[in-house]
């Protein structure tokens, strides 16, 4: 059979539509925004591409760097929690019986069928002061208190609702909730390909479960773990809806600042510079990771 790569005409005709699409609707608009980042506002609607670096200089001021760092910290924390929670879930799906597996996978993907905004509002209904979470905890508190009185003990005091919404906790919870499927799916794909006889061999040869997990399963699933980390971390870093709706007075992330530049502040050049700084940082992180993994491959 002829290699499809050799059939140039066929290859070109198949590739042209997506290439055109990508250039027209991705590269060109992104290029425009990139140009804006070297521009200055003249008047209310005009931007003069003057080649200035002033926007970048302003974006690197301590105020914005601090917000960048905070966003990286929140996104990093989200990623770590997703990994810790997602890994056992992915393992459980891999080891589930074939009858159950599609249902469990469906359960992971089900939230994608609902709009992010709706899910976030639902989360608000759960977390608010008089929301479902506090109502449930309050109910249990009362029952427990009643039980203690029954047992002749001092009853608990009145229940004070927990502050679950409008703080950084709510933001991280919301981000973990939204991004968990992004972590579980690549992990599942990686673990599913894993040769299970290696695990049996490791256990037969006397390694414990923890040791097997850390020295056999984790290294073999490394590509899945890394891609899971990247596709969780990158969108979490750019999250703006979640901190906006669930966050408190100090929960702004860099994407919120970028959004305000394009809307309220009407300062597109500065907003463009901030977004491109975010992109440069992401690119560098991914390139660094690619370099590392190539080095690791060469060492083997």
């Amino acid at each position, binding site marked *: 059979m002829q290699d499809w790569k050799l059939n140039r005409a066929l290859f070109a005709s198949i590739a042209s539509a997506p290439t055109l699409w990508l250039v027209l609707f991705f590269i060109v608009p992104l290029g425009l925004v990139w140009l804006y980042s070297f521009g200055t506002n003249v008047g209310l609607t005009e931007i003069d591409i003057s080649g200035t670096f002033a926007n970048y200089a302003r974006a690197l001021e301590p105020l914005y760097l601090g917000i960048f760092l905070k966003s990286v910290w929140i996104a990093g924390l989200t990623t770590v929690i997703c990994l810790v929670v997602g890994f056992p879930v992915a393992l459980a799906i891999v080891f589930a019986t074939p009858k159950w597996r599609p249902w469990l996978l469906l359960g992971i993907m089900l939230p994608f069928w609902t709009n992010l905004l709706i899910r976030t509002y639902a989360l608000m209904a759960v977390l608010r002061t008089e929301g479902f979470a506090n109502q449930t905890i309050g109910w249990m508190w009362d029952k427990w208190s009643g039980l203690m009185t029954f047992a002749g003990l001092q009853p608990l005091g009145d229940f004070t609702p927990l502050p679950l919404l*409008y703080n950084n906790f709510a933001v991280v919870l919301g981000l973990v909730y939204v991004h968990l499927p992004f972590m579980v799916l690549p992990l599942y794909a990686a673990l599913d390909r894993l040769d299970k006889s290696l695990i049996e061999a490791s256990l037969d040869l006397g390694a414990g479960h923890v040791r097997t997990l850390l020295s056999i399963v984790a290294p073999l699933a490394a590509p899945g773990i890394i891609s899971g980390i990247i596709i969780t971390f990158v969108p979490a870093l750019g999250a703006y809806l979640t901190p906006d709706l669930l966050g408190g007075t100090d929960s702004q992330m860099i994407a919120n600042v970028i959004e305000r530049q394009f809307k309220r502040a009407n300062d597109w050049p500065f907003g463009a510079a901030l977004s491109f700084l975010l992109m440069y940082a992401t690119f560098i992180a991914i390139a660094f990771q690619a370099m590392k993994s190539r080095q690791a491959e060469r060492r083997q």
Partner: protein
Amino acid sequence: MNSFDSIRKRIGRRSLLQGLGAAAIGITFTGALAGCEKKEAGKASTGEEPKLNFYNWDTYIGETTLDDFKDTSGIEVNMSLFATNDELFAKLRAGNPGFDVIVPSNDFVERMVQADMLEQLDHSKIPNFANVGAAFKDVAYDPGRKFSMPYTWLTLGIGYRKSKVDGVPDSWKWLFDSDKYKGRISVLSEAGDMFRLGAKYLGHSVNGVTPELVKQIEAMLIKQKPFIKAFHEDNGQDLLLSGEVDLVLEYNGDIAQIMAEDDDIDFVLPKEGSQLNSDTLAIPKGAPHPENAHAFINYLLDAEAGKKIAEYILFPTPNDAAKALMPADYRDNKVIFPTAEQLAKCEYAAYDGKMQPIFEEAFTRVRAA
């Protein structure tokens, strides 16, 4: 699913969720209707094709207004929704995508006039301008009403839960400069409004804010921040109604809407005075149906049509003829229509292109602090 329903119902005109949902529905419906209409398409009395694209806030028109207009003029109105003035501005910034009538707030009228984005109105085609109250006939943000007609006006103040607050919290102090209601306060996330009202509290005009004053207000807000629960986006009435907070910085119309549902809620215009806003009807440059647009604006200023709008949206109307048709509990409502002496202390905020980025950056610092 009580509380979820209540979220949908009570979020104000600038709500994101409702805006998106309704916009999606709006597109489907109007799309389908436009399709049916084509067969019998003739010309409207204005000589243009009988269509009009209206860009409005959510829940900001009477329930039957658009149908009534179609019955009288034969013009089919296609309404899309925006959630903030910035969204409106951003959409029109790169050229008008086909809107005939838009509803910018007063400061954005100034901004859009400066940016040459609005069409001059032909007053001879808007005879119902006579219905507009004297105070709204000539305004600083649009001298001679060359570009905009008043649609509603509103004022910012404090909405509060009576049973949880001592007396009447009639000063901005309780929101900006006091720990008395710690953790039970929510204020607007709009940088400009926050700094202008901060200036008002400190005894300055909302239009005379200097960079030095911004520094002072910024320090005050950073000090106050630990006591504030959230910065909300014009859905403060929802936070107040659900018991999340007990004091909110909100528009009078938004609070009037929830007062109808909960007796324990009230609204006060702080004694230092406040900021007035007015939403207006305007025609953007490049509107495809300018004649229809004039006819539509004229219709919205009609007494009967204005009454139906005011009945539904419960915002103060600048239309005296419509107000006269409204029941007494609307006309005499001190929340919807504050007294003249209270209003004397309120001002319209002028658009200041130089200060806006300074407000934004200062507020970013407040949030980051």
